[in-house]
């Protein structure tokens, strides 16, 4: 593969691509996502546990969001409840010591100290809670002052973490939390790994299968061609979304349900059709060319001609299809998640968008916004790259 890659890099198309600033920028973005994915997946920048760890009250708005009075009361209620519930346990001191939201711990684990603090908070909190129901609550500056004082008092029950721990907590809270109080940012970044994993596996395997089958079909012809054409005509006689559904549903109830395996299988068995069809058409043209006749005349075997002389000349099509399938896989993952046939054990953009349906109705946009933004940037970069690749290497394509 090294030889044809070098040739491709020196081709006219590659020079055209090199002058395309937008394409270069999109490659940079894709590279950045890839780097994050490697940092998460290989070096454990964010572990799976951190992405499912409760780091604060649920539906906390992000760093530059402005919570409403109801939301602020809701957050306070959460913190008060956490301490209060610890006293219901058999060993309150242990329960107090167990409170740890990403470095945020109670000031003291001493039962008496905390009980005293809690006592002073109960009454103003209840008062405010009832006042909140009344109309015009938010307009009264006096209420506002009470709310702010209460916030300070409740914050005093907790000890802000120091140093790196603090920074890490701030980063975790940057985009707020979801309905289970998990960090949206950490989940969205962790989902980059999942998306890149799905995209890479789907695109690599599909392009590989498609190119080999397409090349073999066109080059050898005869019954091989008939079988392969039959196979892809068959699979493309139903919409790909239905094919994905049927394939992913095969794993329902199996131990693989909810993992990435059904997604991989469904995508690889669906997306190879595109490259196969294109490569078959291209090889049909290539095999009639004189250099192939020359290679035959020299006495090279047919397999060798196909692998060394013909397939390398379809490298540009492989790149274009790789890019297209990557987009297709990321977008289809969201749909499979929505249909309940996709990833369940790890956070992915599909899982996040699907989960945010209830939040959107409540007017909370942080989770859907974050997942959509991260996904949008990557898909946009790939869309631009696909267009640029097509312009550079396959300009006749409509």
């Amino acid at each position, binding site marked *: 593969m090294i030889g044809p890659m070098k040739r491709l890099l020196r081709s006219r198309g590659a020079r055209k691509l090199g002058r395309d600033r937008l394409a270069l920028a999109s490659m940079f973005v894709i590279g950045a996502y890839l780097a994050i994915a490697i940092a998460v997946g290989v070096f454990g920048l964010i572990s799976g546990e951190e992405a499912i760890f409760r780091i604060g009250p649920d539906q906390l708005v992000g760093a530059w969001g402005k919570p409403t009075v109801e939301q602020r009361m809701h957050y306070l209620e959460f913190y008060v409840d956490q301490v209060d519930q610890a006293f219901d346990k058999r060993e309150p001191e242990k329960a107090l010591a167990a409170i740890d939201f990403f470095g945020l711990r109670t000031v003291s684990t001493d039962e008496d100290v905390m009980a005293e603090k809690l006592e002073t908070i109960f009454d103003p909190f209840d008062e405010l809670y009832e006042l909140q129901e009344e109309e015009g609550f938010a307009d009264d500056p006096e209420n506002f002052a009470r709310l702010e004082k209460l916030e300070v008092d409740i914050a005093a029950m907790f000890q802000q973490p120091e140093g790196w721990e603090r920074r890490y907590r701030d980063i975790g809270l940057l985009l707020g939390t979801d309905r289970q109080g998990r960090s949206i940012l950490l989940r969205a970044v962790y989902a980059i790994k999942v998306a890149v994993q799905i995209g890479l596996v789907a695109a690599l395997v599909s392009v590989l299968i498609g190119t080999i089958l397409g090349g073999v079909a066109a080059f050898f012809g005869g019954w091989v061609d008939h079988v392969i054409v039959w196979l892809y005509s068959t699979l493309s006689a139903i919409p790909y979304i239905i094919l994905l559904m049927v394939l992913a549903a095969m794993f329902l109830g199996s131990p693989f349900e909810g993992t990435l395996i059904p997604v991989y299988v469904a995508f690889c068995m669906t997306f190879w059709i595109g490259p196969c069809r294109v490569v078959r058409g291209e090889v049909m043209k290539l095999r009639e060319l004189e250099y192939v006749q020359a290679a035959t005349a020299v006495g090279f075997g047919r397999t060798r001609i196909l692998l060394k002389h013909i397939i390398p000349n379809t490298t540009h099509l492989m790149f274009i299809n790789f890019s297209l399938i990557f987009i297709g896989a990321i977008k289809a993952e969201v749909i499979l998640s929505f249909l309940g046939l996709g990833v369940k054990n790890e956070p992915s953009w599909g899982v996040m968008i699907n989960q945010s349906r209830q939040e959107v109705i409540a007017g909370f946009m942080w989770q859907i916004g974050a997942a959509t933004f991260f996904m949008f940037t990557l898909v946009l970069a790939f*869309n631009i790259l696909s267009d640029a690749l097509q312009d550079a290497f396959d300009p006749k394509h409509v």
Partner: protein
Amino acid sequence: MWAYILRRVLYNIPVYLGIIFLLMAALRVNDPIWGYLGKNASHEAYAAMEKSMGLDQPLLVQFWDFTSGLVTFEEVDGVSRWKAGLAESWSDKGRPVGDLVGDAVWPSLSITVPALVLTSLISITIAILSAYYRGRLPDKVMMVSAVLGMSISFLVYIIFGQYWGAYVLNERIGGEFFAIQGYKSDEPGWWVTYCLLPVLISTIVTMGYDTRFYRAVMVEETGRDYITTARAKGATKRKIMFVHMLKNAMIPIITRIMITLPFLVMGSLLLEVYFGIPGMGRALLQAITTLDFPVAQLLVALFAGLFLLTVILTDVFYALVDPRVRLQ
């Protein structure tokens, strides 16, 4: 031409049988019987149910039963009925599959047909404008927004569409203009209430892809010799655009629309599931997840048949309108 059509039909029979066979095999990876009987059922009950569902037969026998049913008619109460449609649904006990599918067709069509018309009209118009202003600001703006729009997930459009279109709008006007969910076709104005919002969402989602395709078609036409001739003759840009070019560009446009026709019947799966519209797409998802094989098989068989026929007809159409294309 008839010889060509016949040859294509014959050629597509193995493709058609292939998709049905692959579907039946893929469905049977899961065992539906425990799901319907419950985990604690006795082995006798299991065997009885397996027999009544026909699952005790080898796959090839089941395949033969199903495919032969597709081309057989049976006399029921003095009326000749399609045998494939008479099989009973498993999850909706005792209901003939044919009725189930028949009921699901209209809700699907009442969304997909208006959506197709609207999308085609809007995106062809935009594509013409874009090609007219090719390389200039309006073209760039439209093409950039198409790419941006294509990069957002369908599901996000649906979620925000429902939020702004149903929740927020209803709150603002203090009534129900668009329904949040559901489908009833017996009220006056039901189409606007239940279908218009999904139609609009679907239009916005598909517009990006269609506009780009139609524009590419038109741009390709602008490079042809007859355009150069027309220009040399001194025809105005507008005349070349709308008289010479559009007529020729219509061929790929109509072809693309024709190819999408079978997809109309299948409905828009996501929209149907999200808005609770009892169409074909939702029926298929339910059939696949509840392992209701008769329904899933019939839906896929119907769709695949329709799709293959449309492809053949599209090729014939192409040859009819474009004398350069020969059928062989």
